[in-house]
């Protein structure tokens, strides 16, 4: 059943992109372009839901549907680690719990953002509008291909495609230099990561002889036992390099904050909810591989937590509303990698999903604020917008509470799961993660406070006083008025607020699928996702485990411990024996993280609401720290000084080398030829010709004497003749 429509899920947005790209840019009005884009996304979402439901109906060990759409690479003989293998790749899609979750997120949130964009981008001209929706649909096509791809190569197509769309959409306002520069930066930084991905992919084929995810997962334990973990560690490390590029981790995160040059819905969809999570998805997809390489897992966890901490600290002091969210995204992605690094793949995917809801919500909310403020992004020129944008305020408040990890919002469950697993994994990492959580709560509250609370600090507008009384005066009557003459902050049209409300609802309830056992839940999502993270042999064991555990134990760690035990039996040197805490300890941890979050919010409230100006005084007291954070640790400057300058220097040195040595050699050989030709010419002219001429000249000189005898005087000749005759006759007479 799902076989028939699964390929349509990515292909529908592709069709929309094709239609808008080929015909829309020239001929469609705004209404038609938006209708094409939104309807294809809506259809993709409906199909995704259908596929998800169908998957849920199946027994846990049969939740895997593979559809081969077409043959792609015909079988080729290629060398692998175990002799000559066959390299054959199909356009194959696979629906399993992890990809089912992802297509729901991508198509669902993608659809809402499409709808939001209809109003947000209304000020663009018709052609640019269609171009925007063409890119957006194309992005969804590639993203769905990425998550549905059943092998590395199909995933890589999506991987590169989303990178392309990201570049196109960051540089959507390409007339603006900063936007086109940011697009190029994103593209180039991503290439570095993609390079790692490709090398990893090559090594996967060389090691396993196949690129199919399922086949690789099933073989991984055996390969690890046979070939040792070194090669698997190398593969994982290379793949993780790819993930750091796409998911903006240290050291390749620098492109994401700049990517905020794109339209805000793009930031929400690509640079918060979906594309940047592709790296996390990829690591989760290769969970079995990573589980075989504990050292790499440690690296992943460390990079994740350091990125989370660093980005959160930068986010503390940024003043651009979108930049705060961008650093927040980097930080949350760090959380997800931290989760994968400590083996909590399900928690990573869970956080990925909840983050998609609340971060898309926050970005769209900031877009609504920017729209209401007529393009202003600096939070220092906002304030008190609660009165003018009540819906945006309420939804963003929900988003803030969710990301801060306040129960019962979704972020609480996913973040707490990660913190819990980090606590079990490594205490130092847990401490750093908790500090990050506190910072997150602080800067997110700071964002809300600076934007919506306090005193209005924005530009003056006509009728400011009259406006204040009834903030939500019917804006729907001029919905889509664009960014023409700005007449004071105002709520966004319904096309924008409805997606906000839906996302806010999602941000509230999305966590309920993962209520941990300690709180009386069943942590459904972890059991649902477990088959995606195990070799096929372990799936059966894992599938039966939850029901047993649910009956006998209320302890949180049991379910996953059973899963890991199952994995451990399949992979002898795989995962360690999972430690777990008592229910009381777990509840204590939970309470502690909630306290940390609330403390962060309280500090933010004290600094930005109760005592306005306290934050500035604090900044003055520690100027070095403040400036370090404000300037983002000077990482961009460092990269510019080392990588960019280094590349330019290398180019210049190469150029000089080319000009001097290579050209010198060519010119030198030419010069040598010319010189030797000149010498040969001289030899020919002076020696060879000299010999010839010398002969002639010698003869001529020698003939000078004889020539004198030819006087021309007849009488002389006659005299000589006579003398001769006399001589001869005399000789005859004498000698006779």
């Amino acid at each position, binding site marked *: 059943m799902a076989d028939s429509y699964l390929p349509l899920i990515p292909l529908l947005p592709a069709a929309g992109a094709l239609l808008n790209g080929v015909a829309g840019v020239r001929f469609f009005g705004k209404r038609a372009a938006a209708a094409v884009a939104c309807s294809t996304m809506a259809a993709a979402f409906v199909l995704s839901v259908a596929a998800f439901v169908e998957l849920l109906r199946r027994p846990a060990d049969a939740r895997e549907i593979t559809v081969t759409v077409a043959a792609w690479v015909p079988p080729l003989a290629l060398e692998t680690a175990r002799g000559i293998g066959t390299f054959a790749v199909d356009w194959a899609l696979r629906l399993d719990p992890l990809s089912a979750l992802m297509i729901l997120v991508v198509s669902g949130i993608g659809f809402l953002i499409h709808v939001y964009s209809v109003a947000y981008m209304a000020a663009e001209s018709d052609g640019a509008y269609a171009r925007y929706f063409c890119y957006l649909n194309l992005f969804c096509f590639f993203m769905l291909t990425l998550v549905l791809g059943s092998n590395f190569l199909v995933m890589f197509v999506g991987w590169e495609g989303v990178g392309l769309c990201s570049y196109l959409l960051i540089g959507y306002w390409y007339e603006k230099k900063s936007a086109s520069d940011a697009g190029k930066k994103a593209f180039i930084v991503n290439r570095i990561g993609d390079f790692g991905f490709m090398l990893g992919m090559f090594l996967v084929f060389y090691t396993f002889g196949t690129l199919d995810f399922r086949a690789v997962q099933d073989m991984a334990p055996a390969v690890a036992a046979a070939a040792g973990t070194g090669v698997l560690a190398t593969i994982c490390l290379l793949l993780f390099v790819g993930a750091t590029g796409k998911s903006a981790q240290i050291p390749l995160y620098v492109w994401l904050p700049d990517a905020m040059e794109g339209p805000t819905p793009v930031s929400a969809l690509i640079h918060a909810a979906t594309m940047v999570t592709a790296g996390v998805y990829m690591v989760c997809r290769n969970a079995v591989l990573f589980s075989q390489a504990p050292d790499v897992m440690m690296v992943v966890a460390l990079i994740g937590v350091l990125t989370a901490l660093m980005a959160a600290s930068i986010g503390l002091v940024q003043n651009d509303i979108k930049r705060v969210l961008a650093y927040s995204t980097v930080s949350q992605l760090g959380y997800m990698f931290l989760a994968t690094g400590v083996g909590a793949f399900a928690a990573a995917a869970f956080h990925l999903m909840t983050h998609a809801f609340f971060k898309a919500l926050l970005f769209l909310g900031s877009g609504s604020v920017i729209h209401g403020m007529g393009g202003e992004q600096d939070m220092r020129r906002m304030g008190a917008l609660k009165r003018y944008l009540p819906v945006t305020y309420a939804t963003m408040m929900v988003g803030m509470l969710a990301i801060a990890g306040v129960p019962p919002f979704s972020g609480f469950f996913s973040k707490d799961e990660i913190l819990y697993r980090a606590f079990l994994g490594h205490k130092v990492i847990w401490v750093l993660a908790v500090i990050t959580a506190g910072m997150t709560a602080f800067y997110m509250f700071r964002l809300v406070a600076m934007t919506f609370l306090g005193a209005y600090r924005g530009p003056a507008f006509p009728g400011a006083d009259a406006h204040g009384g009834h903030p939500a005066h019917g804006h729907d009557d001029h919905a889509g008025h664009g960014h023409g003459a700005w007449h004071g902050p105002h709520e966004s049209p319904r096309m924008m607020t409805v997606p906000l409300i839906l996302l806010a609802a999602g941000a509230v309830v999305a966590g309920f699928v993962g209520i941990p056992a300690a709180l009386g839940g069943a942590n459904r999502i972890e059991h649902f996702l477990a088959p995606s993270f195990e070799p096929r042999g372990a799936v059966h064991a894992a599938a039966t485990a939850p029901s047993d555990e649910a009956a006998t134990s209320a302890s949180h760690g049991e379910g996953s411990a059973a899963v890991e035990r199952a994995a451990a039996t399949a992979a002898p040197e795989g995962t360690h024996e999972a430690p777990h805490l008592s229910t009381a300890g777990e509840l204590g941890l939970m309470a502690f993280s909630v306290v940390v979050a609330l403390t962060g919010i309280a500090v933010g409230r004290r600094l930005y609401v109760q005592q306005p100006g306290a934050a500035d005084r604090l900044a003055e007291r520690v100027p070095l720290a403040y400036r370090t954070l404000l300037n983002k640790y000077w990482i961009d400057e460092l990269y510019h000084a080392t990588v960019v300058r280094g590349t330019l220097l290398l180019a210049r040195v190469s150029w000089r080398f080319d000009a001097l040595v290579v050209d010198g050699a060519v010119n030198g050989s030419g010069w040598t030829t010319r010189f030797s030709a000149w010498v040969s010419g001289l030899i020919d002219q002076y020696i060879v010709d000299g010999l010839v001429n010398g002969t002639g000249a010698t003869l001529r000189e020698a003939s000078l004497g004889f020539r004198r005898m*030819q006087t021309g005087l007849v009488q002389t000749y006659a005299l000589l003749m006579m003398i001769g005759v006399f001589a001869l006759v005399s000789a005859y007479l004498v000698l006779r």
Partner: protein
Amino acid sequence: MTPITPAHYLVLSAALFSIGLIGVLVRRNLIVIFMSIELMLNAVNINLVAFSQQWQHVVGQVFALFVVAVAAAEAAIGLGIILAFYRNKETVNVDEITLMRW
């Protein structure tokens, strides 16, 4: 009176030849040189006729006639050349005729 012997003829012929030879060598006028050559030719003729008379054989006289004929032809050609030359150079002085030099 002593009879005329071949020796007399030979002395006469030798003298005549010598005069012609000296004329050819010392005179600068082409016409005179030409005439000197005629003298030398006729000295030869005297020799031929003298020996023809001594040996009572006619061949010598025939040859003398040939020489006269050749001399006549030579005189015609030579004078023609001299006349043509004179027209060109307005001189018959052999010192000024050096065209045969290299």
